[in-house]
């Protein structure tokens, strides 16, 4: 079991607010790791720091053995770290299929000359990627909506499409920011199955989640943040009984 992502002493403040304070944890390759914590605990900030959307004030991130602190988002994507967003970020006016095709950007070639000449190679590549992406859409149950504008999908399907798009980028580490937010129980169950399935195909998953049921059923490891600091880390069962976690979520019980 090797470490794919290693976060070491990551720190970020916004003005006087310490959003993330010296947070360290490891994401084991091939495992599903959940990042949990009350609202405002700094979970999304950690995501933004690791994926290159924010620059850390201190600390390091190592991905696949290399120091990647301060790398741009697209460089992280090229290395195989692909994320989704808490507020779904689809290309709403593009079709469902086109959204996933954009996901394959890193694994396709060709600029202006390819666009204008449309050589057999270019056409063949597009046909191949389209076939792959339609399969991907089928996995999340969206194949029938392939030619509809992404913005016309119901919210739950938009979340699934965003994940399918991320998968089209063929990540090594898939980072999902609250993938179950706004989903109904059936959709959440389906999402859980999808996460487990992609892991079984060799993908590593790190996800932020408030739905504890989902966390407890799919996560191999849980990291808990509160007020920007890591307060616990361990297997789901340990976390459920961890006194500091209970305190963070439920408040301190007044001594009688």
């Amino acid at each position, binding site marked *: 079991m090797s470490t794919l992502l290693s976060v070491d002493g990551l720190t970020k403040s916004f003005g006087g607010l310490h959003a993330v304070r010296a947070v360290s944890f490891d994401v084991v390759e091939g495992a599903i790791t959940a990042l949990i914590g009350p609202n405002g605990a700094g979970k999304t900030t950690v995501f933004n720091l690791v994926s290159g959307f924010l620059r850390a004030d201190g600390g390091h991130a190592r991905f696949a053995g290399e120091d990647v602190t301060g790398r741009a988002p697209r460089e992280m994507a090229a290395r195989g770290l692909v994320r989704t967003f808490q507020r779904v970020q689809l290309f709403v006016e593009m079709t469902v299929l086109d959204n996933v095709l954009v996901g394959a950007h890193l694994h396709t070639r060709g600029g202006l000359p390819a666009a*204008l000449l449309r050589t057999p190679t270019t056409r063949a590549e597009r046909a191949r990627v389209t076939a792959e992406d339609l399969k991907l859409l089928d996995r999340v149950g969206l194949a029938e909506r392939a030619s509809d504008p992404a913005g016309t999908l119901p919210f739950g399907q938009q979340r699934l499409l965003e994940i399918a798009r991320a998968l089209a980028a063929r990540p090594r580490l898939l980072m999902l920011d609250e993938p179950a937010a706004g989903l109904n129980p059936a959709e959440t169950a389906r999402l859980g199955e999808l996460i487990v399935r992609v892991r079984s195909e060799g993908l590593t998953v790190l996800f932020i989640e408030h739905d504890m049921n989902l966390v407890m059923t799919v996560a191999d490891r849980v990291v808990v943040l509160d007020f920007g600091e890591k307060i616990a880390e361990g297997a789901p069962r340990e976390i459920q009984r961890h006194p500091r976690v209970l305190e963070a979520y439920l408040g301190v019980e007044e001594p009688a």
Partner: protein
Amino acid sequence: MTSRIVMAAAVVAWLALLRFANDYVLTVLVLSGIYAIIAVGLNIFTGYTGQISFGHNAFAAIGGYASAILTTDRGWPPLVALVAGAGLAVATAALVGYPTLRLRGHYLAMGTLALGLISYVLSVQLEGLTRGFTGISGIPPLGVGSLVMTTPRGYFVAVWLLVAVATGSAWLIVHSRLGLALRAIRGGEDAARALGIDVTRYKIQALAISAAYASVAGSLFGHFVSYISPEAFGLYMVVLLFTMLFVGGIGTTAGPVVGAIVIGSLPEVLSGFKDYRELIYAAVLIVILLFAPRGVLGLFARRRPARAAA
């Protein structure tokens, strides 16, 4: 299917005009066609990539002045001068795009507006090169070898073939991997970045591509009118271009062309109204934008956007 019918209808209309229209009508349509080429290019940058440029007159001016100066003072063949102008416009776009395309929204609008203003001032002030307000006259007609355009009919053929090439190439770009990246940037820069798209590089590329269209159109304008001056490439051009995009349908394949025809010919159609012309012109624009907020083409567009071609 619908697009085939539209294309066939366009070809029929083109042939009919070529056969029956008089020089006055053809002249109006040549100028509309020249504007259509700029609008098609601007549509790639604004309609599909979602970036604002209020400085596209600068690229048309580069093409116009390059052609005028190189074919009169230097005696270059028109086609070579046209290509040279386009090269210069692309280089300028890349150079200007590098710092300004880091800006977003209003800042990009202001930055490009400055570009348009600077190009106007330069075309007035660099008298040694541009002859200032006097302008450059005696620009030779467009031609390749012994084939020289001397009539509006000749220009009508050449310009509208180029409009077809411009529209076709823009369609190819939009439906390619490059076009997917550009549309993704319009859809959301953060999501595009997260998927590995080099947003700044693609924006610069989109600006450079659209600059090439504008420059070619600027060159055509110079040859057709045989005279250019700073006024031909002022900010009013930008106002016209955006009106064309919005009236025709921004972010659609044929929208810029339809908009250019409508805006280019409307003042002529309304000329019978004399003093009330401007009033009716404005009223027609308002009615179009009220009832077709997505442009004339938006009225006919299917609910879903164009599917990616295999």
